[in-house]
């Protein structure tokens, strides 16, 4: 597998393959000796050569952070192949989920199930820390489902509505 990985905005290319219970790894073309154990979900015990690291993975909404010891890195992972696939996927076919960008409270639901919406039309308003944010429809279509009601508390990443 080849990944394009951005760490704090800087790009790296990683070739990573499983082999005989371990990994073969090239970082920007340079061979690296890697031994990894998933200690529990989101926690990796990593050996690079003989150096040992505990790496924690934090996922909030669409954001990914990796903690090496006590240092936090913002990470973005792209699979070059699925990137090509995604270009095709970015179209208006199929249902689209509207998710909460951060924890907060639903203060208004602006549409009803079955309503027709245009791209960019406001669907819900989420309030977090006294800031109100309109969640907009990513496509032209019909509101297939509204999964929250006014006053509901939501977490980052929660699905709020589906547009078909």
């Amino acid at each position, binding site marked *: *597998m080849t*990944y394009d*990985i951005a*760490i*704090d905005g*800087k790009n*790296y290319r*990683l070739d*990573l393959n*499983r082999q005989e219970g371990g*990994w073969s*790894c090239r*970082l920007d073309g340079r061979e690296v000796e*890697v031994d*990894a154990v*998933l200690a529990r*979900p*989101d*926690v*990796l015990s*990593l050996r*690079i050569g003989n150096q040992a*690291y505990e*790496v*924690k*993975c*934090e*996922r909030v909404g*669409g954001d*990914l952070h*990796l*903690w*090496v*010891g*006590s*240092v936090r*890195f913002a*990470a*973005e*992972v*792209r*699979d070059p192949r*699925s990137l090509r696939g*995604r270009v095709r*996927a970015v179209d208006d076919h199929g249902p*689209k989920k509207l998710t909460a*960008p951060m*924890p*907060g*409270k639903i203060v208004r639901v602006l549409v009803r199930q079955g309503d027709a919406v245009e791209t960019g039309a406001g669907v819900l308003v989420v309030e*977090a*820390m006294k*800031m109100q*944010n*309109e969640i*907009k429809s*990513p496509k032209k279509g019909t509101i297939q489902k509204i999964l929250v009601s006014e006053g509901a*508390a939501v*977490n*980052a990443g929660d699905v709020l509505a589906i547009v078909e």
Partner: protein
Amino acid sequence: MFKKILIANRGEIAVRVIRACHEMGISAVAVYSDVDRASLHVRKADEAYPIGAPAASESYLNIQKILDVAARSGADAIHPGYGFLSENAKFARACADAGVKFIGPTAAAMDAMGSKTRARQAMERAGVPFVPGTSRGLESFEQAEEAAARIGYPVMLKAAAGGGGKGMRLVHAPEELKSALEGARSEAERSFGDSEVYIEKAILNPRHIEMQVLADEHGNTVYLGERECSLQRRHQKVVEEAPSPIVDPDMRREMGEVAVRVAQAAGYTNAGTVEFLVDQQKNFYFLEMNTRLQVEHPVTELITGLDLVHLQIRIAAGERLPFTQDEVILRGHAIECRIYAEDPDNNYFPSPGKITLLLLPSGPGIRRDSGMYEGWTVPMDYDPLLAKLIGYGTDREQATARLTRALNEYFVGGIKTNISLFRRILSDPDFRAAKIDTGFLDRLLKQPRVEVATDPGAVDVAVIAAGIFAVLGSAGAGANERPVVNDNVNKPNAPSNWKIAAQKEATR
């Protein structure tokens, strides 16, 4: 002894009191608001009762609802924890009227201490040293002007009903006095419903040192040593330690004896804390008395070997103090960090949300009093205190080393916490040298953040780990989490519209 105790609180302190109940063979009753059904204190209790809407006035501050639960559950005592109703004399009185024992001082003692001006008057009579100033609320600007001139600038204006830095103003010169007085009054009115403001000589960069006292209902009062609480941000304590690095046995005895006099003058019973300001010449002045268990009580427990909550319960049940002053021996050093759900990179704004990953420190000399667990969503309705991490050692150096080590083991994922702030504080040369005062933290936070020299290989590690998590996909992810490969509709590099909007809002 009581059979059943109702805990009129939430979070880590409710869990702390429930644990003490269970250790003493007492049944524990929890109450919870609508957003706290999944909170840890409900899980740990023997019985739990809903008490209504998230707003504290509808739930944890609602005297009638709490007394109703006490009656329904048959609880024979109520522990108020800290905050909420813990220093509410009306509540203590209502408990007495309802025939439920309030675990704390009497309503009369709270009344005597609840108002800072009234406390000052009582202390004047008891011969307690306090900062020069007025013992009564200011009636007019002219009176304030006259008092300030008499005691000398700089002066501090303070709300009589105050706490937490609300209604406080530092005044350097006469021309600032008028607007400061108006500001302090209106803030006091808004925060406490009482605009009474008094004036004190401002002691610049003092230390904040407090003395723990314990009084039974048979006239015995002891002090359990001091806590150094000088590390504060916006008048809120952040790090506390015991003993204070500047207090020697003579000073401790003097302060302790004054604290006992304060408690006795107020007819005080149960656990309480007498707060002092200490100037650079080590003169100490009475500040106020907190008529409750303090957040930072664990540091005293670690250096005395006593369990303050057990003792509170025993005293409330009518028992005598099981030891004398001479039997109180301090041993070792303890430091506490208050772990808050707040974002150090965003001006310490509260950061509620779901805890996706929680890794806990342990090992020698580490105590953790916590109200959180992995998978729990921190509600946005209450104080953001999540947990307290306390390090104990034979001396300050070892306690600091253990706490630093434990902070590196502690990981709270999914929300922002102030854990990184403590690493910064504990590694600061002035902190290590115990050169601390109430201005320490503001000075530290004004300094540009020096990034710790990290292992240059750490970035490589992050890249490789990101790749491995991507290969593992959902198998490597915690419950309900998405795999790391970004398949969002949004371009991964472009901030979402929402983020742009939020940034605009924030910079407005």
